[in-house]
């Protein structure tokens, strides 16, 4: 197990280095950071001086090395736009994104799994048709449109839920959470649904097809032949086996939840890292972009590791082999 984790860890570092390098090459083309850092009327000489101070005139490999070597020590540089250490800014913004991603993942799982199980067990029920229709909406319209429509209905027309921001947040040991206040929870609803709808559909469909396949397997037939209750058969034996692919996909999807958060955060002005990243792209704030990408890669690798560990917990076959 330890060897496995170490191997993973080494691979992760390589992955992240590659990500960083690709990103750095591409930043060249996103725009000129200096143009975005100064007013339009700033003189050419001042711009050139700024470029020099920022080290933007250094050769690309040098810039990359500088970035990586300080990133290794937890220093992601200073934001060109905000003049603040990027690490601090990520720290400020990360809770918002993680809470949103978590709540929408929970929403996707809590709605997707039961719906998937139901549609697999009662193939001809009216409710099944309804669930399938609803779930298809989640993948038939682009996220931003769903977000705007939700805002239109629940904020503008009904005036029940806020259209932007996180509401009031409470700071607990440096982690600002919106989960403890009423306005914070209300503010979470629409963005979480918007972000989670697509994943919910995915999970529902996955659970349904996996479940249908597993219900035909020999051990389910044997379980039924032993007279186990339908409850034990469906939710014990079948669902647990269904969970393996679901865990994998959900884990992998967490990465894309965080990426898709860029859109949701923009629509709902959610002060998370996705919004910060998009603004950084618009402003060519290279340190933020680099740190964000590195962090996404790290998160992904981390989630992958968790998924593998969960796998081991759920599936004893792997557990024994690794041990």
């Amino acid at each position, binding site marked *: 197990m330890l060897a496995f984790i170490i191997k993973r860890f080494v*691979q992760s570092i*390589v*992955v992240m280095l*590659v*990500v960083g390098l*690709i*990103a750095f090459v*591409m930043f*060249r*083309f*996103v*725009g000129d950071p200096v143009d975005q850092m100064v007013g339009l009327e700033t003189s050419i000489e001042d711009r050139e001086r700024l470029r020099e101070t920022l080290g933007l005139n250094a050769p690309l490999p040098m810039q990359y090395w500088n970035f990586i070597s300080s990133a290794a020590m937890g220093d992601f540089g200073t934001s060109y736009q905000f003049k603040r250490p990027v690490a601090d800014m990520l720290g400020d913004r990360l809770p918002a994104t993680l809470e949103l991603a978590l709540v929408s993942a929970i929403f996707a799982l809590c709605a997707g799994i039961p719906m998937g199980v139901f549609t697999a067990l009662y193939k001809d029920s009216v409710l099944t048709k309804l669930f399938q229709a609803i779930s*298809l*909406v989640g*993948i*038939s*319209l*682009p*996220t*931003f*449109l769903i977000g*705007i429509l939700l805002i*239109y209905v629940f904020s*503008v027309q009904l005036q029940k839920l806020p259209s932007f921001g996180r509401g009031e947040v409470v700071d607990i040991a440096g982690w600002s959470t919106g989960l403890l206040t009423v306005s914070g929870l209300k503010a979470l609803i629409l963005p979480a649904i918007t972000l989670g709808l697509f994943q919910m559909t995915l999970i529902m*469909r996955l659970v349904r*097809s996996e479940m*249908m*396949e597993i219900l*035909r397997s020999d051990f389910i037939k044997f379980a039924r032949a032993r007279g186990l209750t339908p409850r034990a058969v469906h939710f014990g034996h079948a669902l647990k086996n269904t969970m393996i692919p679901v865990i994998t996909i959900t884990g*992998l999807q967490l*990465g*894309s939840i965080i*990426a*898709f958060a*860029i*859109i949701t955060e*923009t629509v709902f002005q959610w002060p998370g890292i996705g919004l910060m990243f*998009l603004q950084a*792209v618009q402003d060519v704030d290279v340190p933020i972009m680099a740190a964000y*990408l590195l962090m*996404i*890669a790290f*998160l*992904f*690798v981390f989630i*992958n590791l968790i998924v593998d560990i969960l796998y081991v917990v759920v599936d004893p076959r792997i557990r024994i082999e690794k041990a």
Partner: protein
Amino acid sequence: MSMNKETDEKMSVIARVLDSDIWYSFTRSKVTMVAALVTFLIFASALFAPIISPHDPFDLASLSLMDSLLPPAWNAEGDPNYLLGTDDQGRDVLSTILYGSRISLAVGLVSVAFAAVLGITLGLVAGYMGGRVDAIIMRVADVQLSFPAILIALLIDGTVNALVGGMDRERSAFTVLVISIGLSFWVQYARTVRSSTLVERNKEYVQAARLIGLHPFLIMLRHVLPNVMGPVLVIATINLALAVITEATLSFLGVGIPGTQPSLGTMIRTGNDFLFSGEWWITFFPGAMLAALVLAVNLLGDWLRDALNPKLR
């Protein structure tokens, strides 16, 4: 006589199709038939857009700002010339939808083809070569997964513009979309093909092929491809729908097809700004078209998956 024989053969092909299980399951499902009809209509109308659409929205000289923002024809202020109204530039919404779905479908099809070719090739190579090559390809696949299409598009948009640049913003945007969507999809194909290749690699015929001097890779290509066609087709269908949606999403982030030759996604993004101001038709009709397309293609993909999966039949 030979003519007859040919027609006979053709007939028998048709007869075989009509007799096949897939056709049967197709005719049994009304939803699937409707989905197929909708898909067919959308593809046909996109293909024949220049013939059937009342206006040419891409001909800038024909646009007049004075005709802009007209509501649909049945509305009191509508103009019968513009059945579904006009957008902010005076483009006929109906014609633009027809032309736009052409572009959206082109983005979808090309990016899916790109992903499939890339994925199948890499999957075959990984499965066949094994060892370090396999490890590297699959690790790259892991990296790839942490970069969804959105991120790739944001990053390469500038790069492609700088490299392709030149006159044609439309073409460079198309390239950006195809590359970023294609790159985010290939992993699925690669994994499917790789596992199938791993199974085939050890079979006798591969060894035998090597003995008689044939390149085993070619042999495997011939044997693996038919085996994976089913899953690949299913993935491709669902990816097509996803690609069209992704294109729309990317246009929201400003890296989509530009407004002079709008795709469905661009139209929705533009219309999005007019939602609160009452000009609903600019978003609604393209949105409905997109939803219909994605829904229909998805339903077809679902059906195909079930029909091709012997376990579920």
